[in-house]
């Protein structure tokens, strides 16, 4: 069996493990779908209650915000990876991973797959509920293109989860600022309202991370929201972030593990 096949088998073993652990909590999916339902209900009535500048109708704003809600769950999944790593440190299973031929870096990378795939499914459920329950109008002609666009967006978001995992390995604290970062991204990424409403300096922040172009790209493909930049430019931006940040985050993770091994703190939690 080739090296790549063995690595692939180990990689999939981590994904299956995460699936089995997830399925062992029988109410988790239900509770997270309910969270989406509550968010959709809240914003459905907010969209009917207020008039939002730049949106022609309440339905237009509702479509805008539903995509934002779906992406927030993706963001949470990205950043939850550091919590997973923290759990593994406490349980001593990360030590086991380090002692395995598969190793820590590939192990953490594999740990990202299930949460992101699950976030993908949860985002699809959120959009589906938006359509079925709240009459969200999807732009069906471009919806199929949203799938590869979402994969690209995940590749651009993933480095943030890996970076925070590296930070967790170095500091032993899983939630160092992750909730603040998610809140900040929700604002500068335009998840709940257009970035154009932000003050000028905050709009600059919207330009230097992948969340804003990814959100705009997906929103355009899913509900036909107008773009502030050409689609090709948004795709190029997101791809560039993925290409630069993914290897950088893996290198930082590797350095964090080696730092812990040199200092002997890798076994602490």
């Amino acid at each position, binding site marked *: 069996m080739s090296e790549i096949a063995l690595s692939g*088998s180990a990689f999939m073993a981590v994904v299956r493990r995460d699936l089995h652990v997830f399925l*062992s909590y029988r109410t988790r999916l239900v509770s997270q779908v309910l969270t989406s339902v509550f968010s959709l209900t809240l914003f459905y009535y907010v969209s009917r209650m207020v008039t939002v500048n730049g949106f022609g109708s309440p339905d237009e704003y509702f479509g805008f915000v539903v995509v934002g809600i779906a992406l927030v769950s993706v963001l949470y999944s990205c950043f939850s990876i550091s919590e997973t790593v923290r759990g593994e440190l406490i349980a001593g299973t990360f030590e086991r991973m380090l002692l*395995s*031929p598969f190793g820590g870096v590939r192990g953490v990378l594999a740990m990202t797959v299930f949460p992101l795939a699950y976030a993908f499914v949860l985002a699809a459920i959120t959009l589906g509920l938006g359509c079925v329950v709240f009459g969200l109008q999807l732009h069906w002609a471009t919806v199929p293109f949203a799938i590869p666009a979402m994969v690209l967006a995940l590749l651009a978001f993933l480095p943030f989860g890996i970076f925070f995992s590296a930070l967790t390995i170095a500091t032993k604290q899983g939630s160092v600022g992750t909730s603040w970062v998610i809140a900040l991204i929700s604002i500068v990424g335009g998840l709940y309202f257009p970035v154009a409403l932000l003050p000028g300096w905050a709009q600059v922040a919207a330009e230097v991370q992948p969340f804003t172009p990814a959100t705009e790209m997906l929103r355009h493909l899913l509900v036909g929201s107008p773009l502030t930049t050409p689609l090709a430019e948004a795709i190029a931006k997101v791809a560039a972030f993925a290409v630069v940040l993914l290897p950088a985050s893996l290198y930082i993770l590797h350095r964090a593990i080696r730092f812990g091994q040199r200092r*002997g703190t890798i076994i602490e939690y």
Partner: protein
Amino acid sequence: MSRNALQLSPQADGLEQAAPAAPSSVPADAMPLALRGVSKRWRKDLPPVLEDVDLDIDLGTSTWIGGRNGVGKTTLLRIAAGLIDPDQGRAQAWGFTAAERRQRYQQLIALLPAGDRGLYARLTVRRQLTFWARIAMVDRSAVAGVVEEAIDAFALRELEDRRVDRMSMGQRQRVRIAMTFLAKPEVVLLDEPLTSLDSEGAAILDRAIGELLDRGGALLWCSPEGERLDRQFDAKLMLDRGRLVPA
């Protein structure tokens, strides 16, 4: 500073016997596991926990290292396993360190850490072992057979579908030991392996060690001084103030 050197005489056919596991381009005299001038200090204001330690573990041999609690036995094993780095010196398998060839190193050397950690609480025994076999990069076609073998060898048949968080400490320890021996490593490092084991569990461990030595593998066992050991070792050492001395 004098070297703290101890070497075991090989009882098996040495490197030739381990040919399938040993890297092809190793020095003829390279040991399956060797510590060379290993020192480790946890705090600058405290004496080193390991000081210039040399240790050779050859194939087909078993070694016991004892010592008081907190003397550094676990640190020594963690360094030998490639989990943490020494401040000075090298821990090497067949001449290379874990940092140089990590994947190969971890295929050759397995560690049972002390305590009861390292298990996924909500996975069944079978899933736990299957996961570990695949993470150990056992050939996919061999995984099922390896897991079945481990379930039988460590008397886990009745527990195979039970979640780990619903098992006793002794049963968990058997699973942890099974995970350590699962991928047939050449060198097995055991840190207080008798923890929570009953006499049946200890006998199962003894059989696994016997099988390891019979196939030319090597064993390094650490436990506190005073622990009752039924097994005979080829060498018995004590760790005292950072140095290895004959027991």
